[in-house]
């Protein structure tokens, strides 16, 4: 009975691929690759309004690049910054590049708000007026008599109480000096000029990121050659470095794969297995890519890296098939398929179960990787089962490869040696594994995801030390059902923050309601001035004593009276505000008004986080949240890994009996234990991402166990398949251990130690030492 027809199966495969190709031609032309680090954030569960506000906030900061150019003198620093600005302009990457403070905008802002000087009071002035209005006069005299009081003196005529210069200064605190209109920061003997630029397209396209990286490197080289320094930070730079190193890692994998290909060529002395392997991997990766994009719309670059790694199990199916051709003289593709079908199908089932379990938690990256790998593996299996029998027609290597003799020798003698020496090997191994496991400490810091260079991190730290750069991922969200309630809620929060600031919990905070009083409060401010200075005659006395003449005093009183009913709305106020302030406002919809309150120089996170209980206040701490999420998912992924082992064991138990199932599964279990122990001994990163590697170890380790268990008298060809598989895996994914990105390195290290161990243990399964017929 021949139900299976190779040509029909191959046709089926081809139809499937064509369908995918048609779907893919559309999917792949869209912008499908996500490189932003922020895209890894989970949609905050059960809090869609927070998620939305966070997304807005992230969009606003996403495209900003902050640069400081340093030199021994301020003019030199400014000259460097000017060159940088020119480079930025020529690149066409940026929408707005700011070096000179826009003096016109500044003057316009001054003019716009000056009209509301009786309504807009800063916190300190307000308190002073409430508690001891007389003291305001003393403070004014101090300012006017100061050798530095030029600006105050200039506005004295129209603002004798100096209300507006107080308000305006309170909004623009800091220790910045403007030279030639450029913000210059001095740090010891070094002068730094500030340049801020916003990307034209803050969606962070891959090729733009690469251009940005080159632009920054070029500018750095140029400025350093001229004796200057360049510090730069910003989300786009971190993302650019991340995607650059991801590309490098993909290159490492392909170099390793090329070496693996050479090995295949040498072993089979035929290009067919090689081409078929490549076809299998290409087809399965293509299928995974297309289907994932169709399902998710966009996939993350990390999904590509890890997903492509997990699909690597698929090459085992092909290798097992090819190596089986060495097993007997009358081998045909149909016989071979019949022989390996059970093994690879079992393996597919176990891999699917273990990868699919990753999809359970609502973490976008995990779900993407799980889905990607599952589709890829089904593709690899389908290619081997449907297409290979046809394409292997007539394939029969006549030679006996050196590799086969080596692996056969090894599989005969190695288990025997192990068993002979088990008296001392077993205790040593147990002690080493126990010692390593004892030293294993998990690290879940989300910042490890960033593959930023030490140089970039140092620049970021230095900039944050020189400038009050707001914390990107830690802030408060304040909401209220209308403008008034929002304002009240934010005011309460700001009052608490002021206390915490005095206690040193952070360096400063910024919120809109600090600088924009609600119209009710504006009226109150006006009345406060009226009560304290005008109705008491204090203003008259103060102005007369200072030396104003009668007419000036009358004019001031008239101006005050004329301004009684004026007030400035938030929209008007925001219109002329600088971008940093505008960014705080997330807008009103039918249900609520939302703003952010930003912080910088955070020292005591716990104290800040406690303020989340205030009305309408939410504390957003993306880094810590994500780290704790990683921790929770590491824990649950560990449980899922154990569950996957359980399911695989049950499946194998039903098929082969419990005793045999335990023997087979011992291979990946011990490989996992050794891998974890090595992580402990070498003080390697242990996080969620190592668990991907351990899943790969489970999938491949079970493979090796099953293959050897089913080998019967074909152990020599099986040993070749297993060895080739292990070497190709080590060459591709083991090489990732050389990566500079902490998590990719950890992944590679875990795969390398796990697969090596699985390779060394697998020959112990089945009837080792049994005779083998070699054709």
């Amino acid at each position, binding site marked *: 009975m021949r139900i299976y027809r190779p040509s029909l199966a191959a046709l089926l495969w081809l139809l499937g691929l064509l369908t995918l190709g048609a779907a893919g031609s559309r999917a792949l032309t869209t912008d499908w690759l996500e490189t932003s680090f922020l895209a890894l954030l989970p949609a905050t569960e059960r809090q869609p309004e927070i998620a939305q506000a966070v997304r807005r906030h992230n969009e606003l900061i996403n495209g900003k690049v902050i640069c400081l150019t340093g030199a021994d003198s301020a003019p030199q620093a400014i000259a460097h910054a000017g060159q940088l600005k020119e480079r930025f302009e020529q690149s066409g990457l940026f929408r707005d590049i700011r070096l000179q403070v826009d003096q016109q905008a500044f003057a316009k802002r001054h003019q716009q708000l000056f009209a509301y000087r009786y309504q807009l009071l800063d916190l300190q002035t307000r308190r002073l007026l409430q508690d001891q209005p007389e003291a305001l006069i003393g403070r004014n005299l101090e300012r006017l008599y100061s050798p530095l009081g030029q600006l105050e003196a200039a506005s004295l*005529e129209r603002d004798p109480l100096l209300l507006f210069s107080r308000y305006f200064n309170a909004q623009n605190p800091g220790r910045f000096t403007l*030279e030639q209109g450029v913000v210059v920061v001095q740090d010891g003997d070094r002068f730094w000029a500030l340049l801020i630029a916003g990307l034209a397209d803050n969606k962070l396209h891959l090729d733009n990121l690469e251009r940005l990286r080159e632009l920054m490197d070029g500018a750095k080289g140029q400025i350093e050659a001229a004796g200057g320094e360049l510090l730069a930070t910003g989300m786009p730079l971190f993302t650019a470095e991340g995607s650059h190193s991801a590309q490098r890692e993909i290159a490492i994998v392909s170099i390793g794969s090329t070496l693996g290909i050479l090995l295949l060529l040498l072993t089979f002395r035929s290009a067919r297995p090689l081409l078929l392997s490549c076809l299998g991997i290409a087809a399965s990766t293509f299928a995974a890519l297309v289907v994932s994009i169709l399902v998710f719309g966009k996939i993350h670059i990390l999904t590509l890296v890890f997903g492509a790694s997990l699909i690597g199990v698929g090459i085992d199916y092909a290798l097992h098939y090819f190596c089986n051709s060495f097993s007997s003289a009358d081998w045909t593709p149909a016989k071979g398929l019949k022989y390996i079908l059970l093994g690879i199908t079992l393996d597919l089932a176990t891999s699917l179960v273990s990868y699919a379990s990753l999809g359970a938690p609502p973490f976008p990256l995990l779900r993407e990787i799980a889905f990607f790998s599952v589709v890829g593996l089904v593709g690899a299996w389908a290619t081997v089962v449907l297409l290979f029998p046809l394409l292997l027609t007539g394939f029969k290597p006549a030679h006996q490869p050196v590799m086969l003799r080596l692996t056969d020798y090894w599989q005969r003698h190695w288990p025997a040696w192990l068993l002979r020496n088990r008296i001392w090997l077993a205790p040593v191994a147990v002690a080493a594994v126990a010692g390593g496991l004892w030293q294993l400490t998990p690290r879940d810091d989300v910042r490890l995801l960033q593959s930023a260079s030490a140089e970039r991190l140092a620049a970021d730290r230095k900039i944050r030390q020189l400038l009050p750069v707001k914390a990107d991922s830690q802030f408060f969200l304040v909401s209220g059902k209308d403008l008034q309630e929002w304002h009240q809620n934010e005011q309460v929060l700001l009052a608490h923050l002021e206390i915490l600031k005095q206690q040193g919990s952070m360096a400063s905070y910024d919120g809109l309601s600090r600088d924009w009083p609600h119209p009710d409060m504006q009226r109150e401010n006006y009345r406060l001035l009226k009560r304290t200075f005008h109705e008491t005659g204090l203003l008259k006395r103060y102005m007369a004593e200072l030396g104003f003449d009668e007419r000036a005093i009358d004019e001031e009183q008239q101006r005050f009276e004329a301004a009684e009913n004026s007030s400035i709305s938030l929209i008007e106020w925001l219109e002329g505000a600088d971008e940093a302030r505008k960014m705080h406002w997330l807008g009103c919809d039918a249900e609520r008004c939302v703003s952010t309150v930003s912080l910088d120089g955070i020292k005591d996170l716990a104290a800040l986080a406690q303020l989340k209980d205030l009305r309408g206040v939410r504390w957003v701490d993306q880094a810590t949240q994500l780290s704790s999420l990683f921790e929770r998912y590491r824990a649950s992924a560990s449980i899922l890994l154990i569950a996957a082992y359980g399911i695989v064991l049950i499946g194998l138990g039903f098929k082969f009996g419990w005793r045999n199932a335990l023997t087979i599964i011992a291979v990946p279990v011990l490989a996992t234990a050794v891998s974890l122990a090595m992580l402990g001994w070498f003080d390697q990163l242990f996080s969620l991402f190592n668990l991907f590697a351990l899943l790969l170890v489970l999938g491949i380790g079970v493979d090796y166990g099953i293959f050897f268990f089913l080998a019967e008298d074909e152990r020599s060809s099986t040993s070749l398949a297993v060895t080739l598989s292990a070497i190709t895996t080590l060459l591709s994914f083991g090489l990732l251990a050389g990566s500079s990105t902490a998590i990719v390195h950890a992944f590679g290290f875990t795969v390398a130690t796990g697969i090596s161990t699985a390779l060394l243990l697998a020959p112990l399964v089945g009837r080792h030492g049994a005779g083998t017929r070699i054709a």
Partner: protein
Amino acid sequence: MIYLKALVLFLLTANICMADELLDQIHARLTKATITRGAFEQTKQLKVLRKPLISTGTFIYDKSRGIAWKTLSPVPSLLLISDTRLWTAQGEQPVPAAFGKVFQAMLGADLAQLAAAFDIAGAVRKVAWQVSLVPKDEMLKKVISRMQLSGDQELRMLEIFESNGNISTLHFQNIIHPDRLTAGEEADFAHLSP
């Protein structure tokens, strides 16, 4: 003979010279000390006020820490200026570039940095000298049109001409160069340490 007369006249009268040379010559006359202490009298002539604002007090300059400007009358107050910071009892403010520099430069006899920020013209006699500084920075020019300094081995007078017509005049007296700060002065400067 006419030639000789002219030469003598030239040597006797103020010799006008290039900025760098001028600064070098003033520098040669100034006392070099790490600490300078003295009294000041400041008169501010504001256009909108009928009478000038007059204040008196003391100042101390320490090369490594900066300047403490202590107004005693009519309103006691303290102002501290370092390279990068400006402190008053009312809070921190940005350092006004020109002003901080001029103070530091004159009191510390470190004139080189003045040439970078100002166009300089002036005259040097045997002991006395005077110099006028015009800001190069356009922004600063909008506030301060010119500064006039004069002195001998010390800075004696500083006049600030604001663009809007206000004029401040500072006279410095009783200048001495002690070896160290008093405990009280140390405590004042402590406000500047982070």
